[in-house]
């Protein structure tokens, strides 16, 4: 306890990414203090390292099978929070959930948030995550005031957009490959409530979605659509468009993590099949279509519906799930989305959670940042092996054709060709990458 026990890497077979598809053992260390990190970087021989958070990335960008992982969850302390200015500085392992529990009661909120609060601050920056308000505020990297980076050679850098701009832009969205993000300072936003006024509008097809997205972007800070991509024919692309603004009632109640439900075991792989997913999607559509209008929703329900079930990924069984998220630039977007939906419907493979959103034109700072102006579609597929991988390759081809990009945080299988087409500045990034850091993802797509 009070004694310092030598920390080293331990081999573990239970360390998986969120998709639970990639399964091989990892060497893992669990430091609690930043003063342990330099020694860890030199430990485990010549193996490369990768700092990781809660491993909510779906594929292999948060794994390093040939190297070693440094789990940052033990560095989960706040450094400072100024409730006058909304400046928050914290260690990289602090979760967005913890941040919200501290800052929401004081009237502040994260500038943007992904669909789960169970990611670390470091992970959110390393993946330059975006949220339902991207069209208004850009992605997480746009709100990082400064960050501390520990390079593999032991050098500690404080990065901000003015100082070391190149390394800053490589680290935002840099998948942990430029060094260990030790801490970061964020500019939070002032909100009028912990609640949203949410409007849910059922729509019948993709054309109706385009109209709603255009109509809503100006008036609503948060927009997103859930799409039933099992619907076919005249209903193809139907879904529920949700748009919301912060309420102004001054009720600042933080969420509670006490009511987590968990899935104790992997469900049988067949549980989510074409029929059950089609039925679920149709039911979900009709149930929600029946209760339209404005409703008041707490941020935890609005942003994080799936966080109510702690490990919902186990619904997909032992073979795991594959995610695919792409963005297609404005211009070819209508044609490309139609082609993507057609391809999915034709394949007969079910996607449970298909999310469609327009991204705005605030430029992402990162050399490998995913968000860019256009339309993003996120899909998940139960892993059925080759069949699923082939479908995803066909979807990638449509995205490449349209000049779009695939999201590394969601990916465990895109080709090197797709990666390089998605991130034309990848070679500039490779120059800034820390040679002592690596990941399964980077080895696959760039080496």
């Amino acid at each position, binding site marked *: 306890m009070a004694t310092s026990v030598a920390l080293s890497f331990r081999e573990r077979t239970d360390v998986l990414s969120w998709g639970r598809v990639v399964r091989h053992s990892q060497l893992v260390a669990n430091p609690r203090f930043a003063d342990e990190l330099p020694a860890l970087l030199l430990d485990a021989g010549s193996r490369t390292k990768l700092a990781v958070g809660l491993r909510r990335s779906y594929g292999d960008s948060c794994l390093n099978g040939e190297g070693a992982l440094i789990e940052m969850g033990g560095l989960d302390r*706040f450094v400072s929070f100024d409730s006058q200015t909304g400046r928050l500085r914290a260690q990289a392992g602090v979760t967005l959930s913890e941040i919200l529990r*501290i800052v929401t009661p004081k009237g502040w909120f994260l500038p943007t948030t992904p669909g789960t609060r169970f990611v670390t601050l470091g992970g959110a920056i390393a993946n330059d995550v975006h949220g339902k308000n991207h069209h208004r505020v850009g992605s997480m990297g746009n709100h990082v005031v400064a960050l501390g980076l520990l390079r593999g050679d032991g050098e500690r850098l404080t990065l901000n957009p003015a100082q070391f701009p190149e390394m800053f832009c490589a680290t935002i969205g840099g998948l942990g490959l430029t060094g260990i993000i030790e801490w970061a300072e964020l500019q939070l936003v002032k909100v009028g409530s912990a609640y949203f006024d949410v409007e849910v509008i059922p729509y019948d097809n993709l054309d109706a979605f385009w109209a709603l997205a255009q109509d809503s972007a100006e008036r609503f800070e948060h927009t997103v659509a859930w799409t039933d991509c099992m619907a076919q024919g005249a209903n193809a692309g139907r879904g529920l468009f949700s748009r919301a603004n912060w309420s102004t009632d001054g009720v600042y109640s933080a969420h509670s993590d006490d009511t987590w439900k968990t899935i104790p075991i992997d469900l049988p792989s067949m549980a989510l099949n074409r029929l059950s997913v089609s039925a679920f999607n149709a039911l979900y559509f009709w149930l929600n279509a029946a209760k339209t209008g404005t409703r008041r929703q707490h941020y935890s329900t609005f942003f994080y519906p799936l966080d109510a079930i702690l490990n919902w990924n186990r619904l997909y069984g032992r073979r795991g799930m594959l995610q695919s998220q792409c963005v297609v630039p404005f211009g070819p977007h209508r044609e490309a989305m139609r082609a993507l939906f057609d391809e999915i419907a034709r394949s007969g493979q079910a996607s449970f959670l298909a999310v469609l959103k327009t991204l705005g034109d605030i430029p992402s700072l990162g050399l490998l940042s995913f968000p860019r102006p256009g339309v993003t579609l996120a899909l998940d597929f139960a892993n059925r092996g080759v069949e699923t991988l082939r479908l995803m390759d066909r979807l990638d081809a449509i995205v490449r054709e349209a000049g779009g990009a695939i999201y590394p945080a969601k990916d465990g299988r895109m080709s090197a060709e797709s990666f390089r087409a998605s991130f034309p500045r990848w070679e500039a990034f490779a120059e800034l990458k820390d040679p002592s850091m690596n990941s399964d993802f980077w080895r696959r797509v760039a080496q």
Partner: protein
Amino acid sequence: MTGSVKQIVILGATSAIAEATARIWAAQGARLVLVARDAARAEIIAADLKTRGAADADVVALDCAKADAEAELGKIVSRLGRLDILLLAYGVLGDQQALEIAPAAAADMIRTNFDSAALWCLAGAAILEKQRSGALLAIGSVAGDRGRQSNYLYGATKGGLALLVEGIAHRLAPLGARAVIIKPGFVDTPMTAAFSKKGPLWAKPEAIAAVIARSAEKGGPVVYAPAFWMAIMFVVRNLPWAIFRKTKL
């Protein structure tokens, strides 16, 4: 300034269990004094606790195993004005087989886990006795419940500490002050980094912390963390020698 704000002193405040417990108290707005050898680490924790709601968090850099417990605790408490909770959370595990052939190292371990801890507990008890309020909480171990070949030196120090704290609880009981020995089972902390931490018997530091924070309010004088260890240790303690001697525990 004191009023209803709880005045809490934590010995060995950089340990994972101590820090998790301190967060619970910080969220309640307590004023904390963190006693630790590594002041730099303790300062990092103090800044965090203040952000999480602590009325204040001060660091006292001290090697609890070597310090003059009575004098040091006296100084701290005179600054605080009152002692509501004293948590003793430092200790070393040690490698049983290595200690068996290294008497100097064994003596060190006994000094840290028992000798020094006993003096801090006695110093705390004297203050609580005078106040007629407050709680002494000490972290023991299920290893202290029965001597087992694999871990009896550590177990003896923690078992001894348990008896001591139980005795203090008995002494304080008529006055309204309390003492509790908390006995965790397997906890996933850096102290147990060498073990493979799988299975339902392993608990997170946060789970132990919740038990400790609860023990500051009620229960005791002996509390297992998590509670199911009470049943396990009942069986272990009562296993007949004829069977026990053949086990590898």
